[in-house]
């Protein structure tokens, strides 16, 4: 059963909670209260809805992919989050948290970013709302997402390279949390996904569920299948949540299989991980026998994360959502496929979800399938170009 909100301890079943240094706990408690009040406040909702309509361009279109539908023998619809301002769904969350930051009277914002989409969306919200913005980004991601790094700088943000660990998203989240432990009195942490300590997973879900709510409005009848990529899981949570538990709607989250599950180099936290505490919440994560966090691997920086939002862990165990995976190679193939067949360059994250649809096309034959096209692929063009030689 879907939960409207987590329990008193911030739990979705056994997952979630707040495992954070005591220094952060009062801020997390205050954030829960601020968010609860703001979310009930018509003026806050009105201001956010206005920005989503006129600044972000919501509702994003639902596009019927004719040519690809014929090719795959399914009825394929694309929820075009790639057409949202800044090129991904991330802006839904950053504008809302930006408004919340102002409401709390804080002037400085920190964020982590993997692919750079959340970093750009946060920098954008901060430029619009006159907030100081510092983005932590792994040095490996800085290298593979150079375009987004420059976009953040253009928007006035400071990008801080993170050299610890593998220099990817996990390390960027940790660095942002370390900053927050020191700066919590004056700074809000705009976390980019449905991860982290309570109330973040719940709050970010509430800010992203607009995707699924629009989809409901845009269709005469619910689709047979909704497919979305899952790293931390915010776009998937956003599109799934309004449909969770609905009869006849098959929800499929696609994790990164990297170089193949058997290689051990992947980001399939639900498929291959085990329960543990990562970045403040109990969830499925990649860890060794002693509980040390393992590095994930994915060609997609946004899926290169060894954990997943705790509500996804709950959905998995409750059988409400099915979690599958696609490899780097399959994602790159799907990237080309969508470019050629529909004239759309998808983010490599979204390409994972399409890759799964392509693999399963014969099983999905004749069914209506919605792909949450979470972001556009401009940021990935250089990386794909390198692969293609």
């Amino acid at each position, binding site marked *: 059963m879907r939960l409207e909100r987590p329990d008193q*301890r911030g739990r979705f079943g056994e997952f979630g909670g707040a495992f954070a240094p*005591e220094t952060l*706990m*009062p801020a997390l408690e205050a954030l829960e209260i601020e968010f609860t009040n703001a979310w009930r406040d018509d003026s806050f909702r009105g201001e956010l809805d206005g920005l989503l309509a006129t600044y972000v361009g919501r509702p994003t279109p639902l596009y019927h992919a004719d040519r690809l539908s014929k090719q795959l023998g399914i009825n394929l619809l694309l929820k075009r989050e790639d057409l949202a301002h800044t090129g991904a769904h991330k802006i839904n969350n950053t504008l809302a948290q930006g408004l919340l930051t102002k409401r709390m009277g804080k002037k400085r914002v920190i964020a982590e970013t993997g692919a750079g989409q959340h970093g750009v969306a946060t920098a954008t919200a901060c430029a619009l709302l006159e907030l100081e913005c510092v983005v932590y980004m792994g040095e490996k991601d800085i290298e593979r997402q150079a375009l987004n790094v420059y976009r953040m700088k253009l928007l006035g943000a400071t990008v801080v390279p993170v050299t*610890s660990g593998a220099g990817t998203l996990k390390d960027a989240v940790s660095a942002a*949390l370390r900053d927050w*432990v020191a700066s*919590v009195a004056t700074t809000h942490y705009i976390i980019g996904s449905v991860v982290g300590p309570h109330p973040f997973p719940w709050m970010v879900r509430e800010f992203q569920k607009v995707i699924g709510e629009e989809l409901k409005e845009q269709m005469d009848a619910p689709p047979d299948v909704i497919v979305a990529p899952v790293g931390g899981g915010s776009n998937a949570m956003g599109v799934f949540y309004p449909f969770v538990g609905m009869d006849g709607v098959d929800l499929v989250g696609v994790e990164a299989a990297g170089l193949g599950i058997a290689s051990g180099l992947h980001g399939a936290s639900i498929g291959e991980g085990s329960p543990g505490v990562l970045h403040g919440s109990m969830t499925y994560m990649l860890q060794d026998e002693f*509980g*040390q966090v393992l590095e994930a691997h994915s060609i997609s920086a946004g899926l290169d994360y060894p954990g997943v939002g705790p509500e996804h862990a709950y959905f998995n165990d409750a059988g409400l959502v099915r979690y599958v995976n696609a490899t780097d190679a399959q994602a790159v193939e799907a990237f080309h496929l969508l470019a050629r067949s529909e004239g759309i360059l998808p983010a490599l994250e979204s390409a994972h979800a399409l890759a799964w649809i392509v693999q399963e096309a014969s099983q999905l034959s004749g069914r209506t399938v919605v792909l949450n096209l979470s972001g556009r692929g401009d940021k990935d063009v250089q990386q794909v170009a390198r692969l293609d030689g």
Partner: protein
Amino acid sequence: MSNRWLVLMANSGSDRLRALFSISRDEDRAVLLPYLTAGIPTVDASVELFVAMADAGADGFEVGIPYADPLMDGPVIMRAGEQALDAGVTVPVALEVVRRVVDETGKAVLVMTYVNPVLRRGIDTFFGDVATAGAAGVIIADLPVDEAEPFLAAAHEVAVGMALFVSPMTSAARLDSVISCGPDFVYGIAEVGVTGERTEASSNVGALAESIRAKSEVPIVFGVGISTPVQAHAAALHGDGVIVGSAIVRRVLDAATPDAARESLSVFVAELAAAMSR
């Protein structure tokens, strides 16, 4: 019999912890608890460093289990943890360091970890391991009072002490829940922020100690941002114990040889020990 012998002779971790804090009461000074990550620079050399610090006047120790994602730690302790993990210092290896330090120094040892290695091992099993190693207490950096109940119960079961945290940000209501959970000692976070050296002495320790003592007689150990004898003295005026971490770890990481590290720590720990009197 002197209090130091009481620590050595005590049977359980909780007894060792009580004996440790009785030093503070009886001698009108705070106890000095240097922190070092287990296995830095090597397993054998780290045990020797703890012995040298005991000889230089440390009353007990905080031994860090290396962790891959230490959210409460600054760059120095992070680097030590990465180095130790690369050298194969797993949780069992780190607990073997704890056992050797207890055996060779007779001092009270507090084990510092993050929550996930404890969960992975199983809470009860982990605390059993800690008790077997002879540790006096456990500090879990990312465990707030809200999630602490099963950990406190497991610690109690094997008579090992358990800390809960109070920071300058902690509200009166949260302090009440900390006290009512009955920790064996309170870890007072002297500075808002992660572990690491600071230039100024903490201005928070007096008020923190006062708010805790108004509600309980539980021993208070101050840590985070205490890196010089002057800062340690300021904390010693208000706390029962003082933890110095990054300043110790940095000296070990910076030393050219284990011998150089030992000499450097002997001098530094003696200076810190002299700063413990009130």
